[in-house]
């Protein structure tokens, strides 16, 4: 409230509210509303994509892009907002894929149940692992997450019931939303994964401005200070890990339905952990659109280089991919979204 308004109360009739006085909060609210509307427009526009594209290869790339946008957003909740750099999210992805596949193939339980079960199981495991792991700091935490995921990979590799190294093949069935199997048309997969991305985005959007969101950023910036201000650092990390693992596992379950065949290497390799973190790092850690922007660049690039250069495992595609990761992380440590931040700030200032 401006000083003028305070000193001349009589001049201002009580019935007319002074819009200026509330500007910081009101401005914030409109910014939030604008973000939400933009997001809904983006989701709606994306929903039209299957009507425009019929090419199967291109649809596949787009489905993977959206999947990794969703996965990276899930990773971002723990790694980006809460600052806990997990390099073992392949574990949760694998749990989602395996639980969904086992329930469907061995027990005939529809993937929808499997997705939920996988999500809950991954969440519980994340909480159980968080108990010891969140005492570790920095690199110790990251390396522990790699090791735990590798251990999961080893165990699944030797788990005969789950097909060991051979993995699990889904039976071919008629196209159906019920069993999430679509052999002829890729569009339903696209809608599913778009829905998943939208949900993860909206959950992130809702949480980041809530009490938890503020706690997470406090834990990321300075855990000691946060603790002294009454933030329970440990519980904050646990909550972030639980949410993050839940959505990662759902992504894994979807992936299993999408490719209809999983084996330990194809869902739990270390590479997957990185593939989940990279888009967020590239696009912008701890930002709402960073993971999606990063995925939009990385996944098509990886897929195209693989199909054009990666024939017979020549390795050139890997080299290009590695060089790109290096260059981007060095030249734009804040991520690509920071370019837009700059515009926003300039516009607000002028």
């Amino acid at each position, binding site marked *: 409230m401006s000083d003028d308004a305070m000193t001349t109360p009589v001049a201002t009739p009580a019935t007319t509210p002074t819009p200026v006085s509330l500007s910081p909060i009101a401005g914030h609210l409109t910014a939030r509303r604008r973000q939400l509307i933009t997001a809904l427009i983006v989701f709606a526009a994306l929903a039209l994509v299957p009507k425009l594209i019929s090419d199967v290869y291109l649809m596949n790339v787009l489905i993977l892009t959206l999947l990794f946008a969703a996965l990276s957003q899930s990773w971002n909740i723990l790694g980006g907002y809460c600052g806990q750099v997990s*390099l073992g999210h392949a574990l949760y992805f694998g749990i989602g894929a395996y639980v969904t596949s086992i329930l469907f193939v061995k027990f005939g339980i529809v993937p929808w149940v499997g997705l939920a079960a996988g999500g809950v199981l991954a969440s519980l495991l994340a909480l159980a692992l968080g108990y010891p792991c969140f005492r*570790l*700091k920095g690199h110790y935490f990251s390396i522990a997450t790699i*090791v735990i995921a590798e251990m999961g990979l*080893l165990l699944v590799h*030797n788990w005969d019931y789950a097909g060991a190294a051979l993995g699990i093949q889904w039976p071919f069935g008629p196209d159906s939303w019920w069993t999430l199997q679509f052999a002829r048309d890729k569009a339903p997969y696209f809608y599913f994964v778009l829905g998943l991305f939208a949900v993860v985005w909206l959950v992130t959007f809702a949480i980041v401005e809530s009490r938890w969101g503020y706690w997470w950023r406090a834990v990321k910036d300075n855990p000691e200070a946060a603790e002294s201000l009454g933030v329970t650092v440990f519980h904050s990390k646990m909550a972030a890990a639980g949410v993050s693992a839940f959505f990662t596992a759902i992504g894994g379950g979807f992936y299993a339905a999408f490719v209809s065949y999983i084996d330990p290497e194809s869902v739990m390799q270390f590479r997957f952990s990185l593939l989940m973190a990279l888009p967020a790092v590239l696009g912008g850690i701890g930002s709402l659109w960073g993971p999606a922007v990063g995925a939009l660049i990385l996944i098509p690039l990886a897929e195209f280089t693989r199909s054009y250069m990666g024939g017979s495992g020549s*390795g050139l595609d890997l080299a290009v991919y590695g060089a790109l*990761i*290096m260059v981007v992380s*060095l030249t734009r440590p804040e991520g690509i979204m920071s370019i837009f931040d700059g515009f926003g700030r300039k516009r607000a200032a002028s």
Partner: protein
Amino acid sequence: MTTQALLQVLASGLLMGLIYALIAVGLSLIFGLMDVVNFAHGEFLMLAMYATFGLVLATTLDPILLMPLVVAVMFAVGVSAYAGVVRYAMRATTNQGMVQIFATFGLAILIQGLAQYFFTPDFKSIQHSWLGGRTLDVGGVFLPWPQIYGGLISLATFGGLFLLITRTDFGKALEATREDQGAVALVGIDRNRVFALGWGLGAALVGLAGAVLAVFYYIHPNVGSTFGLIAYVTVALGGFGSIFGALVAGVVVGLVEALTTVILPPALKSVGIYTLYLGVLFIRPSGLFGRL
């Protein structure tokens, strides 16, 4: 299980452990010096193995004679990696930890891709060396000469490293930079130069390990991933930055791995190391000899 069989397992584990320690110590050294984890460490090892293989093909000399050359090449690789990548990663003001992880990881993928492109994904091995195929019989316990030789090189290297750090100017500069990066600038030590030399030394050490390993292990573009992970576990177990910790942890990892194969099927041999590592970390979050 007979005593002799157990002794055999322990001896093999000990020798392999010494080589693990040699692989890990460069990683620990760089971390202690500048708080950076090199995620391309395993790829450095792979490069050293290919360098050994290539030099053997080119010169037809014995791999043992070529070792100094491999170490020199890897020193150059280390300095270049610092000058070309890490120096820039250190400049990031936001997300520095993340930038370092992904910059060195990008480098790892780049090296792996190039190795696959230039050397093909095929497995290679060095067929002839003075040591190849010969074993030493110590009272019924058979030890392959390449591993004995690797273990001895590892011990000698740790001794040399200890002397280097305590007795030479470079070693003192290294220690001083570890202790306080700001203060060394005041006494006229060029921090950048120490870092570059530190990376050179770190890569040269893993280069030595690669030259040792190349004599008795298959060489392929993904060989770095396996040993890289063992190196991270070893360093974290011993405590990041602790050179003595790397030696002890390397031996422990080698022994535990060997003992695990007695109890579990060979495919699960790493489960023992991982379990031990996690167990220790949950009791001592900064490793056995870590300062945090």
